[in-house]
C-alpha cells in the first residue's frame, strides 16, 4: 500500500511531459544556432558511398540466372498469360479472348450475386460495362488479369502465412516486422532487381504487385484467428478436437469475414500497383496512364485512372458483400435461382464466343474521349481560377513551416539530431520509443543518405501531421453522421485508388515543382485511409457510452473529446500508423514532382544502374524512418493510459 502512494507522489512531483518536450526543443534550437552546418553528412546527387557501390555490385551478382527463380517465373507467367488469354488477349488462334466482354460481365455479375447480393451484382455489371464504354475494355481486362493473378498468388502465400502468424506468437512478431518492411520499402527499390530475377514480363510485374499486396491478407488472417473467442476454441478442444479439426472447423470458419476484409485490402493494394508495375511493362491501364503522362495529357490519364477506380470500387463492394453474408445456407428458392443464373451466364459466355458484338466491346459507344476532354477542361479551369492563390499557399507553408523544420533537421549535426530524437522518443514513449529510435537512427547514419533522410523526414512529419488532422476531422464527422459517411466514402475510395500519377500533372500546375507539391499529393493519397479508420473507430464506440455522456449534459465537443476519441484510441493509433505508411509510400512519387531527397535517390537508383546501390540505401532509409516514427507513436499511444499486465492463457490450442 505504501509503495502505491509513494509512486503517486513521484508522479505528481515530476514536471509535465509537455514542459519537458518544450525545454528539449528550445535546447535544440539553441544548439542549432551554435552548431549549424557541422557534421550534416550531406552527399551530392551523383555521389555515392562505399556501401552504395558495394550494393550496386551485389545487384549485378544476384542477377545471374537461377533455376529456382526461373521455375517461379515460368509458373507465374503461365498463370497470368492464361488469365489474359481467357479475358483480355486474342488467344488460341482466335482473334478474340476465350471469353468476350458479354461473358465476362455476365460471369462477374453472377459471381457477385452468388457470393454477395443482387445489388452488388448490378453494380458489377454496370461498372464493368462502363469500362467498355470508356473505350478501355482490353486494357482493363489486362489489368484485371494481372491483378487477379497477383491476388491469387498473394492469397496462396498470404493466408497460410497469416494462419501461421495467427497461431504462433513468435511467427506473429516476425511477420509484423517483415510486413512493415514489405509495405514501406518503396516498390521502385525492388522493381529493377525483380526484372533481373524474373526477367521482363508478367512474372516480374505480378511478383512486384504480390510483394506489395500480400501484407494485408497476412495481417488480417492472423488478426482474425487471434480474435476468435477463446471459449469457442476451448470448447472445441474440450471435446477432443485435433489441431487440424480446430483449425478447419472452428478457427477458419469463424475468421471468415475478417479474412475477407484482408482479401479486400489485398485487392485494393494490388490495384494501386497497376501504374508502378507498368514501369516494367505490366500490360493494362497503367500503360495508358504512363503514356498519357509523357505528353501531359491529363484527360486520357484521368480516363484510365477512372477505370482503375471503377474496377477497385466493384471489387471492393463485391468482396465486402461476400464478407458480410450471414452464415445461413441458401434457401431452395435461392438455389434454384442461382442455378438458372449460372445457366444464363453460360449462355452469355457462349454468345461472347460466337458473335463479334458480344466478343469485342462495341466501339461506337466510346465515351473515353469525352471524359478525357471534360477532365482536361475542369483541370484547366481549376488552374486558371486557383493558380495564383495556390502558389501563395505553397510559399507561405514552405517558408513558415517546412523550411524552418527542414533547416533544423538538416543543418544540425547528425549526432545532435539523433540525441534530440531519442530524448523526444523517451519522453513520449519511454524506452519502448527510445530504443527503436536509437537503433533506426544508427542505421540511418549507416545508409549514407542521412542528409536526404532529414529532408524527407521534415516533409514526412509535416504531411503526416496534416493527414492526421484532416483525417481526424473528416473521420469524426463521418463517424458521427451516417449521411456524411455515405457521401464521403466513394470520394475516399476514389482518392485511395486513383493512381497518384494521374493527379501529379494538375498538382504540378497548381503548386509547381516543389516539396509542397509532394506533400499535397501525399496528403490526398493518405487522408482517405486515415479518415476511414477513424470513422470506423468512432462508430465502434458503444452507444451506451455515448448515451451516458449525453445524459450528464455533455456538449458535442465534450462527447467527441472526452468520450469518442479516447474510447476510439486504438483505432486512432492505427489511423496514424496507416497515415504514416501511406505518406511514406508516396515519398518516391514525391521525388517525381520536386521533393528531391530520398524519393529522388530511389527513382534515380531505378533509372541509373550506377546509382542502384544508393537507391536501395535510400529505400531502406525510408523504411527506417517509417519504423522509427511508427514505434515512437505506438509507444506514445501505449503510454498515455496506465496499462496493467493482464494474464492470458499460454497458447491458443
Amino acid at each position: 500500500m505504501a509503495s502505491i502512494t509513494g509512486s503517486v507522489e513521484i508522479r505528481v512531483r515530476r514536471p509535465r511531459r509537455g514542459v519537458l518536450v518544450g525545454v528539449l526543443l528550445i535546447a535544440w534550437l539553441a544548439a542549432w544556432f551554435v552548431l549549424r552546418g557541422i557534421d550534416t553528412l550531406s552527399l551530392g546527387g551523383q555521389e555515392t558511398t562505399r556501401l552504395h557501390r558495394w550494393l550496386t555490385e551485389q545487384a549485378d551478382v544476384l542477377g545471374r540466372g537461377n533455376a529456382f527463380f526461373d521455375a517461379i517465373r515460368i509458373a507465374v507467367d503461365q498463370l497470368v498469360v492464361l488469365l489474359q488469354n481467357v479475358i483480355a488477349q486474342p488467344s488460341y488462334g482466335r482473334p478474340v479472348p476465350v471469353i468476350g466482354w458479354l461473358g465476362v460481365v455476365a460471369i462477374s455479375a453472377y459471381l457477385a450475386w452468388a457470393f454477395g447480393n443482387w445489388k452488388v451484382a448490378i453494380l458489377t455489371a454496370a461498372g464493368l460495362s462502363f469500362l467498355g464504354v470508356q473505350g478501355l475494355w482490353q486494357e482493363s481486362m489486362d489489368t484485371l488479369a494481372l491483378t487477379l493473378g497477383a491476388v491469387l498468388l498473394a492469397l496462396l502465400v498470404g493466408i497460410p502465412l497469416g494462419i501461421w502468424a495467427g497461431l504462433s506468437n513468435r511467427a506473429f512478431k516476425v511477420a509484423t516486422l517483415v510486413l512493415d518492411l514489405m509495405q514501406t520499402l518503396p516498390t521502385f527499390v525492388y522493381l529493377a532487381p525483380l526484372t533481373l530475377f524474373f526477367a521482363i514480363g508478367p512474372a516480374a510485374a505480378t511478383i512486384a504487385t504480390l510483394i506489395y499486396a500480400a501484407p494485408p491478407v497476412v495481417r488480417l488472417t492472423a488478426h482474425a484467428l487471434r480474435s476468435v473467442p477463446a471459449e469457442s476454441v476451448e470448447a472445441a478442444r474440450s471435446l477432443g478436437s485435433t489441431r487440424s479439426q480446430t483449425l478447419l472447423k472452428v478457427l477458419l470458419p469463424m475468421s471468415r469475414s475478417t479474412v475477407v476484409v484482408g482479401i479486400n485490402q489485398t485487392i485494393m493494394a494490388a490495384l494501386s500497383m497497376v501504374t508502378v508495375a507498368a514501369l516494367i511493362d505490366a500490360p493494362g491501364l497503367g500503360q495508358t496512364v504512363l503514356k498519357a503522362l509523357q505528353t501531359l495529357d491529363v484527360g486520357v490519364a484521368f480516363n484510365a485512372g477512372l477505370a482503375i477506380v471503377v474496377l477497385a470500387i466493384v471489387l471492393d463492394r463485391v468482396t465486402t458483400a461476400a464478407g458480410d453474408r450471414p452464415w445461413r445456407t441458401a434457401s431452395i428458392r435461392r438455389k434454384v435461382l442461382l442455378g438458372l443464373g449460372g445457366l444464363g451466364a453460360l449462355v452469355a459466355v457462349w454468345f461472347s464466343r460466337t458473335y463479334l458484338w458480344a466478343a469485342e466491346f462495341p466501339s461506337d459507344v466510346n465515351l473515353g474521349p469525352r471524359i478525357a476532354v471534360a477532365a482536361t477542361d475542369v483541370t484547366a479551369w481549376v488552374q486558371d481560377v486557383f493558380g495564383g492563390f495556390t502558389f501563395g499557399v505553397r510559399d507561405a507553408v514552405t517558408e513558415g513551416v517546412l523550411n524552418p523544420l527542414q533547416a533544423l533537421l538538416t543543418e544540425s549535426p547528425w549526432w545532435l539530431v539523433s540525441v534530440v530524437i531519442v530524448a523526444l522518443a523517451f519522453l513520449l514513449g519511454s524506452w519502448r520509443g527510445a530504443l527503436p529510435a536509437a537503433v533506426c537512427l544508427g542505421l540511418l547514419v549507416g545508409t549514407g543518405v542521412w542528409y536526404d533522410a532529414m529532408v524527407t523526414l521534415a516533409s514526412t512529419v509535416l504531411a503526416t501531421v496534416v493527414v492526421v488532422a484532416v483525417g481526424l476531422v473528416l473521420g469524426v464527422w463521418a463517424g458521427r453522421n451516417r449521411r456524411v459517411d455515405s457521401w464521403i466514402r466513394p470520394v475516399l475510395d476514389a482518392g485511395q485508388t486513383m493512381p497518384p500519377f494521374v493527379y501529379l500533372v494538375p498538382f504540378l500546375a497548381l503548386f509547381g515543382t516543389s516539396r509542397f507539391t509532394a506533400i499535397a499529393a501525399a496528403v490526398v493519397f493518405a487522408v482517405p485511409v486515415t479518415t476511414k479508420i477513424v470513422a470506423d473507430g468512432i462508430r465502434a464506440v458503444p452507444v451506451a457510452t455515448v448515451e451516458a455522456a449525453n445524459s450528464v449534459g455533455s456538449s458535442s465537443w465534450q462527447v467527441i473529446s472526452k468520450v469518442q476519441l479516447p474510447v476510439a484510441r486504438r483505432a486512432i493509433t492505427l489511423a496514424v500508423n496507416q497515415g504514416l505508411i501511406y505518406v511514406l509510400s508516396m515519398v518516391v512519387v514525391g521525388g517525381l514532382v520536386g521533393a528531391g531527397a530520398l524519393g529522388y535517390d530511389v527513382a534515380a537508383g531505378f533509372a541509373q544502374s550506377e546509382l542502384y546501390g544508393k537507391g536501395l540505401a535510400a529505400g531502406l532509409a525510408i523504411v527506417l524512418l517509417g519504423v522509427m516514427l511508427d514505434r515512437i507513436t505506438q509507444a506514445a499511444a501505449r503510454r498515455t493510459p496506465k496499462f496493467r499486465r493482464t494474464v492470458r492463457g499460454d497458447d491458443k490450442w
Partner: protein
Amino acid sequence: MTNKLRSAGVLTALALALTGCGGAKVGETEQPAAGAKECGTFNLTVSPWVGYEANAAVVAYVATKDLGCKVVKKNLKEEIAWQGFSTGEVDVNLENWGHEDLKKKYIDEQKVAVAAGSTGVKGVIGWYVPPWMVQQYPDITDWKNLNKYAALFKTSESGGKGQLLDGDPSYVTNDEALVKNLALNYKVVQSGSETALIQAFRDAEKNKKPLLAYFYEPQWFFNELKLVKIDLPPYKAGCDADPAKIACDYPPYDLDKIVSKKFADSGSPAYDLVKKFAWTNEDQNQVAKYIAVDKLTPDAAAEKWVNENQTKVNAWLGK
C-alpha cells in the same frame, strides 16, 4: 416453381431473340495472318519519351507491313531495356543516348548486344529558358549573365539562390558540378520527372514566370514551345573527363541503335531494316507531334508519315 418456369421462359426468349439478331460471328471477318515466317518475331523496347515512340512506331509499322514481321513492343526504362539484352527479352533499342558505361558492360564485356549505327537524330542537352525571357532579357542566353539574373529565379525550394531545375533521374547531369565550377549563384533543384519539367515550362511561359531548367532536344514539346538554350562554355573533347571539374557544355549526342547479338546474327530482314533506319530530327519531331499533339495512335502516326515519306522508307528497305 412458377418462378423457375418464368425465369426459364424469359431466358429462352432472350436467347432466341439474340440468336435472331446475332450479327457477325467471331472469325468470319478475320484474314489469316500474313506470312510472318521469313521475318519472325522481335522484341522492341519502347523508352518512355515520345521521340523514342516515334522511332518505334515507324520501324514497327514498316517491319510489320512490308516485311511481315511480328513486333512485340515492351515499355521499359532504358536501364531495364539494357538488362533485357542479357536476359534475351529485348532485341532492339532504337534510340540510345550515350550510356558509355552500359555499352561497355553489355557490348564489350557480356557481348550480348551490338551497336547498329546512328539513327541520324542529333541529341542536345543543355539549360533552357522559356521564350518570353529571351525577349525581355536578351542577354540571358549567355551563361556569364546568369548570376546577374539569379534573383529572378529564386523559389521556395532554392534556399535564397537562383533555381536551376533539373530533370528526370534517368538522365545523367553535370549540373551540380557546373554550378560550382562556373561559380554560379544557383542551387540545383530536382524536379524528378520530365512531366514536371514540361509543366514548369508551360506555367513559366503562360504566367511569365522566370525558369531555368535542364532540357533536351529533340523533344515533342518544342512543337508547342520553342525553348531557348543558354550558351554554356563550349564543349571540347575531353572537357568532361573528370566529372568533378566539368565547366563546359554537354557534348552533342549522336543517338544510336543497339540490338541484341542474337538478333544481329539471326539473318532476319528486320535486322537490315533496323540497321538502315535513319532519319532527321525534323522527321522524328513530325511523328512525335502526330502522337503527342494530334493524339494519333503510334500506328496511325507512323502510317501517316510513311505515306508522306515513301522514298525514305524505300531506302531503309533497300528498294
